[in-house]
């Protein structure tokens, strides 16, 4: 198929086939690609807001004492930074944006099973986000509880906790709706020949993620409603003065919020499992083990929430069990890493931007995962719990892991939907800056944590000053790289070099359709005759 017929200007592309025009053609569209792009630009906007907050936090911590803000502002900023990054960026980021864009095409479907429900999910997300933003500027102001909303503090705080928590509650429903939609779509709408063992690994990872979204998110919803009941009605579930138990809240919160980490990282692993074989021109090593390990992580990951609570006063027996289960989750993660590295062996490797992000994902995710072992072992967790070590570890997994995978996905898949691509050289420079800045910032934080600096500290003792300065300077390098990456990417998507159907030589179905794809993806239902990484049959040299 000649791709030049399908530039964004040609009528067959999903960009300009609709009767109505302007914003309503987007915000009321039920096309999975349009919804995917709506999600993408929404989550990216919230990401940039939270990045600015993060940079401000680092500037405040640049030197001991007051630098640019007072303690109340600092406490509100780290709460809002965390809440936006977790609930408005990275949880909806993969399923909402790239899941919607890519998954239906990868399984050979015209759309998801419930296109209207899909649109509703984006609307719920935006309404929830609007409620959260309203909460920042009304009532008692932005919440200052930390994104974990621990009681009794969150039940007492005079800030606008109830409204913010209600916003998160609504966003949670958007996540559940997406999960239901994806599970149904993957079960029901696979093209003929798309058997479970030919499913691209990104789809496998979304499938595992969708189950976590469906099963775990309702518990978050209930927990958040209980906080509101505690604050508004004074029911005393968590307040010891009224016979309640603050530790029970922590259980309820982490029963969702630990599996939520897998909502953030599993699809990222799926992206890496797509990029590495394509840029090595070689079938992925251990397809079945990678697919199986996604399910294993989702299942075992639902049983490890207690490792957030080793210092909370839960019983020693509970710590024994949760520590053991935490180590069990490490095994499928290790299996994935070994399989990715083995895929490179005797391949033909090309180091373009998506591959650089994928390879750096392996290093950063490994550091995040391995430092997780320190946190899983009961004795060592006690020392670094609630310190900057945890902050560093978490950012290695979620920023170095999920974030870098998302950047990789942006370079890998967005050209498919815009029909144009970014410039390669600036993309590589931006990646290099981010990789260096990232490690300076977050590795330093882990060292600070080992030295005993607690997290959520507005001020600190002079002994922690030099390393805090280093971490702040690192955050600036990271920010410069991020800006360069986005400018280059957006310029490329608007006016860059046009791309053909299959710029990277992929063997999954999205590379068989034009860039950008037509509205219903395939002129006629495709029949799948080979696996997702069978490059010998994908028509590439």
């Amino acid at each position, binding site marked *: 198929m000649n791709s030049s017929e399908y530039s964004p200007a040609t009528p067959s592309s999903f960009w300009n086939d609709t009767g109505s025009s302007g914003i309503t053609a987007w915000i009321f569209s039920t096309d999975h690609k349009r919804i995917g792009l709506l999600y993408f630009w929404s989550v990216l906007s919230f990401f940039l807001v939270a990045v600015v907050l993060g940079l401000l936090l680092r500037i405040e911590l640049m030197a001991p004492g007051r630098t640019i803000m*007072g*303690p*109340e502002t600092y*406490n509100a900023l780290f709460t809002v930074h965390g809440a936006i990054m977790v609930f408005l960026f990275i949880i909806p980021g993969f399923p909402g944006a790239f899941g919607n864009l890519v998954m239906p095409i990868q399984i050979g479907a015209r759309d998801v099973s419930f296109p209207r429900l899909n649109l509703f999910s984006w609307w719920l997300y935006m309404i929830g986000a609007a409620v959260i933003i309203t909460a920042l500027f009304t009532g008692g102001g932005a919440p200052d509880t930390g994104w974990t909303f621990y009681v*009794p*503090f969150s039940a*007492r705080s005079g800030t606008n906790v109830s409204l913010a928590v209600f916003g998160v509650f609504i966003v949670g429903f958007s996540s559940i709706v997406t999960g239901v939609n994806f599970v149904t779509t993957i079960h029901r709408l696979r093209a003929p020949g798309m058997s479970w063992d030919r499913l691209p690994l990104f789809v496998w990872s979304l499938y595992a993620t969708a189950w976590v979204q469906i099963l775990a998110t309702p518990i978050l919803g209930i927990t958040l409603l209980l906080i509101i009941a505690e604050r508004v009605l004074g029911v005393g579930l968590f307040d*010891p*003065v009224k016979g309640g*138990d*603050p*530790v029970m809240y922590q259980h309820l919160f982490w029963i969702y919020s630990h599996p939520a980490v897998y909502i953030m990282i599993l699809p990222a692993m799926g992206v890496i499992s797509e990029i590495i074989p394509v840029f090595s021109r*070689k*079938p*992925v*090593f*251990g*397809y079945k083990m990678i697919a199986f390990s996604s399910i294993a992580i989702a299942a075992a990951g639902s049983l490890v929430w207690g490792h957030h609570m*080793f*210092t*909370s*006063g839960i019983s*020693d027996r509970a*710590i024994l069990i949760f*520590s053991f289960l935490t*180590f069990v989750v*490490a095994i499928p993660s*290790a*299996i994935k890493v*070994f*399989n990715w*590295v*083995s895929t*490179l*062996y*005797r*391949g*033909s*490797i090309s*180091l373009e931007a998506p591959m650089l992000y994928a*390879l750096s994902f*392996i*290093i950063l995710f*490994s550091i995040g995962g391995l430092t997780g*072992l*320190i946190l899983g*072992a009961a*004795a*060592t967790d*006690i*020392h670094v*719990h*609630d310190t900057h070590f945890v902050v560093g570890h978490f950012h290695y997994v979620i920023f170095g892991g999920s974030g870098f995978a998302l950047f990789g996905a942006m370079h890998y898949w967005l050209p498919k939907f815009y029909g144009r691509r970014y410039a390669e050289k600036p993309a590589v420079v931006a990646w290099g800056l981010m990789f260096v800045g990232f490690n300076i910032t977050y590795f330093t934080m882990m060292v600070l944590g080992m030295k*005993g600096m*607690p997290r*959520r500290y507005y*001020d600190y*003792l002079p002994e922690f000053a030099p390393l805090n300065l280093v971490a702040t300077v690192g955050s600036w390098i990271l920010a410069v790289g991020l800006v360069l990456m986005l400018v280059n990417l957006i310029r490329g998507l608007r006016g860059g070099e046009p791309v053909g159907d299959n710029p990277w030589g992929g063997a999954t179905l999205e590379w068989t359709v034009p860039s950008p794809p037509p509205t219903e993806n395939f002129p006629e239902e495709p029949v799948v005759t080979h696996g997702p*990484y069978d490059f*010998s049959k994908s028509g590439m040299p």
Partner: protein
Amino acid sequence: MDPNLITSTQAAVDPVFMFIFGACLLLLVGITAVMVWFVIRYHRSRAPAPTSCCEGNVWLEIAWTLLPTLLVLAMFYYGWAGYLALRNVPKGAMEVTATARMWSWNFTYTNGKSSSKLYVPAGKPVKVNLVATDVLHGFYLPAFRVKRDLVPGMTNYAWFIATKPGSYDLFCSQYCGTGHSAMITTVEALPPAEFLAWLNHREGGEHRGKELLEKHGCLGCHSLDGSAKIGPTFKGIYRSSVRFMAAGKPMTATVDDAYLTESIVKPSAKIVEGFPAIMPTYPDLTVEEVKVMVEFIEGLK
């Protein structure tokens, strides 16, 4: 691990750190080195086409499932054994009760003496009973690798030995609001004889007002020496002129008995300009106690 062989909490935890960090470093260097080598060796400039279409290997999968399993089980066991050492308090440990409130520490000894710093005898195990009066706090001694949350309505404990005399940081590790990062004090480990002298020294000359201020945690936010903390310093505040907002209008007042009493009983009434309105109320203070505290503050010139 036999608890009798444990000489200190840090001696129980540090080998676990060494073991896990060592294993992690080996794995990370190994993975990175192999990856970089593959990327260089099989770069498209050297390998224009793949030379293998291998889709997997059962024996390799078994190997890299079993080996990490054994390794993490070892880490789990070692971590658990070290943790038990943190929980098993040696016989004959001295007991102290730590009371945390927003945002100060108070330590009470069995003879009734109390202090805002944790004085302990060097070389002797100390068991700290952990009590919180308002929200969650965290009792964290980095030097001894000890941490435990203080949960309202629940008594937790921790133990440690300061093997050498000295001063060690004590942090609040569980986020507790505006003054969280200021909620720090120290462990003062004294030679045993010196510690006994301190413990049994009754500060006869000490004003009862100061004891009360210390006991209720006032000094966590208000200094006695003029230094800046979250609240105004008490030094020289008596007879000074303060600005505050009342009914939306800026007002000025001279600090007198009535102002100080109102500020203790009803803290939100007249908040001194430039300070946050965050002081909690203390419903269990008696009228007489407030009077003694006010007297003491008035004496701080």
